């Protein structure tokens, strides 16, 4: 009897132990499949580096493109523009001139949309516009609407983000200058989770050939894509799992200013769009990824907004141990700003759509 007693105890130890691991295994399988989420796919060589170009300063940002010409604006020298031909590396320094020399401004940003360039200050507010090549900026919209970010979508319209006077929260809109200036705001697009300002912060994107607009939230695993007048807005989840912005805000001080109480959890660091592909830089590691990788490169996740799918991921490597600040795709080139350098990559089939123009020439000869 006692022998049986010990035997039962032994079995009673072994069987639940085996069972527990098997059950854990089955659940793990289930979770992984439902939430393919944190497993990134890295196909070999979706981009191939062409060269790094020293541009001398780390204050440059991407202002836009005109075919093979990349234009970089400079946040510390706002009237200066650097033009780089990404194919032959020719550079040209350009000085922009306002027609109104008495102009007062606070924070200027330059954006290129051929045949025009736009100089914008949403805090004054004003927008100047001029022709590429002429580089004289004439007042285009004055004392119109305040905005905190704007990107031109055609010669007469901009995709803007501003504070809605009605809701006191951030809203996306279209600022149009036809015979008179109009601002159409859609207060339903940005979805408030905490305060409707900090938590909805993100990157605005325009997909120029299709006219598609997008918005990528910084602090949650979500982005949207919509048609030019905000029709057909679709929301997408990224592969990350942070659904609700993890930020903490201070109570307003005497001037009514609110700040972040602690560093926010940044889900999407920066983003770019190209032919219906949304590319998002994320420093968040998938479950099977090594932390050390982030010392060498930034991770870019690629989504297809037409199919609504996560496609693949790739690394953008640091230059001199500095990480990518901003990146964009133009034609068959991926351009990344890293510290005081610009890195030029060539995008590869089948991961990226190739320009027809280049299919006959570059593609067959190869890099």
């Amino acid at each position, binding site marked *: 009897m006692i022998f049986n007693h010990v035997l039962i105890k032994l079995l009673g130890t072994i069987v639940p132990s085996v069972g*527990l691991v098997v059950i854990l295994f089955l659940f793990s399988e289930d979770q992984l499949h439902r939430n393919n989420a944190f497993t990134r796919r890295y196909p070999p060589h979706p981009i191939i580096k062409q060269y790094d170009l020293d541009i001398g300063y780390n204050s440059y940002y991407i202002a836009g493109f005109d075919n093979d010409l990349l234009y970089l604006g400079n946040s510390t020298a706002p009237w200066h523009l650097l033009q780089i031909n990404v194919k032959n590396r020719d550079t040209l320094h350009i000085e922009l001139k306002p027609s109104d020399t008495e102009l007062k401004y606070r924070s200027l940003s330059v954006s290129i949309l051929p045949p025009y360039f736009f100089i914008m200050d949403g805090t004054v507010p004003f927008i100047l516009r001029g022709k590429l090549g002429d580089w004289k900026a004439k007042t285009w919209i004055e004392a119109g609407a305040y905005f905190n970010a704007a990107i031109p979508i055609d010669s007469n319209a901009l995709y803007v983000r501003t504070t809605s006077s009605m809701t006191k929260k951030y809203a996306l809109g279209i600022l149009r200058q036809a015979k008179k200036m109009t601002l159409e705001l859609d207060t339903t697009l940005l979805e408030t989770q905490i305060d409707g300002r900090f938590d909805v912060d993100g990157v605005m994107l325009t997909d120029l050939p299709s006219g598609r607009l997008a918005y990528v939230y910084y602090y949650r695993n979500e982005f949207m894509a919509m048609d030019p007048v905000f029709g057909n807005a679709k929301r997408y989840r990224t592969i990350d799992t942070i659904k609700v912005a993890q930020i903490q805000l201070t109570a307003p001080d005497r001037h009514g200013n609110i700040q972040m109480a602690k560093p926010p959890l940044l889900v999407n660091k920066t983003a770019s769009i190209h032919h219906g592909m949304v590319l998002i830089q994320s420093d968040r590691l998938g479950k099977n990824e090594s932390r050390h990788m982030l010392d060498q490169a930034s991770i870019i996740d690629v989504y297809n907004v037409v199919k609504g799918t996560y496609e693949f991921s790739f690394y953008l490597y640091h230059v001199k141990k500095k990480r990518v600040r901003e990146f964009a795709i133009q034609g068959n080139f991926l351009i990344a700003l890293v510290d005081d350098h610009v890195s030029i990559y060539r995008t590869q089939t089948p991961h990226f759509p190739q320009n027809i123009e280049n299919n006959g020439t570059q593609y067959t000869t190869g890099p």
Partner: protein
Amino acid sequence: MKGSKKVKVWFPYAISMLYAILFIYAATSKLWDFQQFKIQLGQSPVLTAYAAWIAWLVPITEYALAFLLLMDSTRYRAHYATLGLMAMFTTYILLVLNFSAYVPCSCGGVLEDLGWTEHIIFNLFFIGLSIMAILQSAPNKTLKATLL
């Protein structure tokens, strides 16, 4: 009878010493390169979803068991717990071997250099030791008469 009484005392004790050394060694080498251990667990197809907390749980359990095995008052029960843990490890190895194309090992230290067959033999050997220790220290004579 006197001899067998001695065996009854020292055998489970020796096994518990052996286990304690094994556990302390394995747990320490896991914590030594904890980041690596966690990544390996995460990459394992069996436990991916729980890698983060299992990575902590395993070495802590190993330390705790080593301690309990060395205490006279808890040794008998610790042998059962050890048996359970070894059964789990072995199940894990079998699942990894049979359900995954990619096989990482996160056992720690030189144990990682064992081949899979050796590993299973190693584990089964220790499981055998556990069972013997339990049987030896089981508080009755009929059992001993039956088995030994």
